Structures are given as C-alpha cells and as structure tokens.
C-alpha cells in the first residue's frame, strides 16, 4: 500500500499515538457529531478549509491556526478520512500538500468502511493541547487556475480530466441529482476526457488496485508522461482524482482545478463542448 494510504486496522491501532492526529472531513458537516473515530478532530470544509470572504483555498495563517488548535505541529502524522469515499478528506489532503505538510495520509475506505465494520464511534470532541504550526507558502504547482485550463484546452498541452458524472459531462444535468444548480451552462471543457471519480473506488470505499487505476487512465491515453489537470464542479471530487494520479500512481505533473465547472460553466464567452 502506498505510504499515503493507511488501513482501518492501522488507524484503530494508532489513533491514540502521540504523534498521530486523526481528522474527519465530511461532505455532510453534521456527520462528525453523529459519531466519529474516538479522538478524531472534525474539520468543516465550508468554514474551516477555505477563505470565507474570497473564493480561495484556506489562507496560510488560517491553516496554521486550524492545525495548531487541532494539536498538530509540523512533525505530526495527519490521517484524514471522511464520508462520500473521502471526497473532502482528499480536498484537505490537497491543501495540506500545497502548504507543505510532509506526513499526511488518507484512511482507505473512509467513514463508510469504518461504519460498515461496526467500529467504535465517539460523540466527544477531543480536548487537545494547542501546538504551533508553521506552513510553507502554497505550492501552486499543484493547483490549476483558469488561464492554465484555457491554455490546456486550446493548445492541448495538458490532459483535462473531467471527473463528474457522465450526465454532468454531457450537459444533461447542471449539478448532481438532488443538489442545487450552480452554473449557467452544462457540458464540459473542450478536449476534456470523462473519467468519473467513482471509477477510482471499490464498492466498500477503498481505492482500486494500482494496476486497475493505471489501466483506467491509460485506457484514456493518460500515462503520466504529460501534464494533467483534473476538475469537477467545485474541486473536491477532482482532488480525489488528483490524489490518485499524483500520490497513488506517482504521476509528476498533476494539478487540481478547484475553480472547476462552477467557474468555467459561468464564464461569459467560455467555449463549452456537448455532449
């Protein structure tokens, strides 16, 4: 198993180690309060993992404060897990890597597998001694901005991977069924390939084998020999695909476009491909 993935058994054995901090990050921000891995901290992606004024990733100072009050210093092993097959755990992972945290991992299978195995849950928030955290300046080589994507689409210099569902890719729907529409146009960025995020995972929430993952992308011509940009609607599903490509398959030049379809699909004059 890659050194960025840990099993549920590993977490059960190491959750209370002094140098390990388990962190739950869910799509459903109420899930943590229903019960979490004993000792785990909960982070709210809507308020704690972003800039709440400007649309942006978490500011450096805010990240330092979040980690410090979570009892995390620069040498802590952070293990992330969450619902929806680790969507927002991967989102947190991506941001922690941007800010240079060395040892951050994801619990394979996430919250779903923990629940399915009838593991212990706690409703108590842990009381933690605050620590001092010093983040590096963000590594923007892990992040794609609009001009990068425009160039990639127009000049075909990077593979664009659309990880949304096929119905979002074709423009049949503007958002996942049951969720609010957050764009003006449906479709995809011209030249993008459709590789839904869910194809990375097994039914129990764990990641597929390295061979299966390698084949999944190679079948679409993505072999890690050219730059890759992953996108979805707001950047969290694509951070899971970014995690797979960058950290499980070890491809060097992979970026997450967190502007994603909520940026491109609302942009005046942006070209859109359908289906």
């Amino acid at each position: 198993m890659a050194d960025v993935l840990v099993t549920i058994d590993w977490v059960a054995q190491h959750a209370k180690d002094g140098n390990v901090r388990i962190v739950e990050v869910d799509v459903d921000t109420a899930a943590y309060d229903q019960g979490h891995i004993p000792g785990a901290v909960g982070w709210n992606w809507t308020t704690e993992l972003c800039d709440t004024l400007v649309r942006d990733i978490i500011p450096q100072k805010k990240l330092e404060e979040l980690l410090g009050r979570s009892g995390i210093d620069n040498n802590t092993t952070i293990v992330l897990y969450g619902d929806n097959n680790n969507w927002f755990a991967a989102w947190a992972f991506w941001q922690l890597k941007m800010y240079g945290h060395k040892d951050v991992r994801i619990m394979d299978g996430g919250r779903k597998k923990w629940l399915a195995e009838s593991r212990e849950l706690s409703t108590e928030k842990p009381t933690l001694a605050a620590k001092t955290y010093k983040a590096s300046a963000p590594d923007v080589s892990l992040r794609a901005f609009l001009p990068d994507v425009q160039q990639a689409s127009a000049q075909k210099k990077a593979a664009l991977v659309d990880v949304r569902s096929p119905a979002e890719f074709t423009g049949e729907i503007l958002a996942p069924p049951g969720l609010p529409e957050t764009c003006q146009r449906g479709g995809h960025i011209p030249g993008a390939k459709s590789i839904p995020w869910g194809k990375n995972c097994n039914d129990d929430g764990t990641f597929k084998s390295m061979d299966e993952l390698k084949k999944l992308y190679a079948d679409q011509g993505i072999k890690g020999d050219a730059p890759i940009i992953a996108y979805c609607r707001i950047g969290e599903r694509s951070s899971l695909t970014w995690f797979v490509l960058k950290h499980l398959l070890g491809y060097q030049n992979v970026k997450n476009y967190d502007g994603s379809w909520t940026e491109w699909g609302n942009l005046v004059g942006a070209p859109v491909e359908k289906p």
Partner: protein
Amino acid sequence: MARGPSGATSSARLWRSRNVRAEGYAKRRQPLGGWEIEIETYQAGELFYCTINNVDPGARYARAEGATREEAESRALEKAERYLKQTRRFSTG
C-alpha cells in the same frame, strides 16, 4: 480512584459510556423520481441515521435520523424526493 463492578475506573466508564459502535450498517439502491439512489442506514446508540446519495456521481444530498430504521429512512426519502424534483434534465444535442 473509584472502580465499578467491572473493575473499570470512573473515567474509563465515562469514556465507554460516550462511545458506541455503528450497528446494522446497510445500503441498498432503488429508483426514486427517475433517478437511482443509494440508501445508507446504521444505528449508533439509540438513534438510526440514514443518508441518501445519488448513485451517479455518488453525492449525499439528504439525511435524517429517527428512533427506528424505518423512521429515519422515511424522513430521508421524503427530503430526497423533494430535492430530486428540482433537478432538471436538458437536451444534450
């Protein structure tokens, strides 16, 4: 430190009393309002928790809790159906 009948200290008993296990985790798929959904339900302590995901792309969009599995699922399904009615389908041509 005081010990209970099991020999555990009061703080250990308190820790255990706040910890439960997820029991009876189950998931199934079914159509709802023209869409495939996945229903996940489990019990933790005295409550049942139900979440509804769309099968594709797998996003949770409704949840509820209840004193029984049926109550939690019925409440979640009611919300899910309401939200799904707001999803529009467009021509892709």
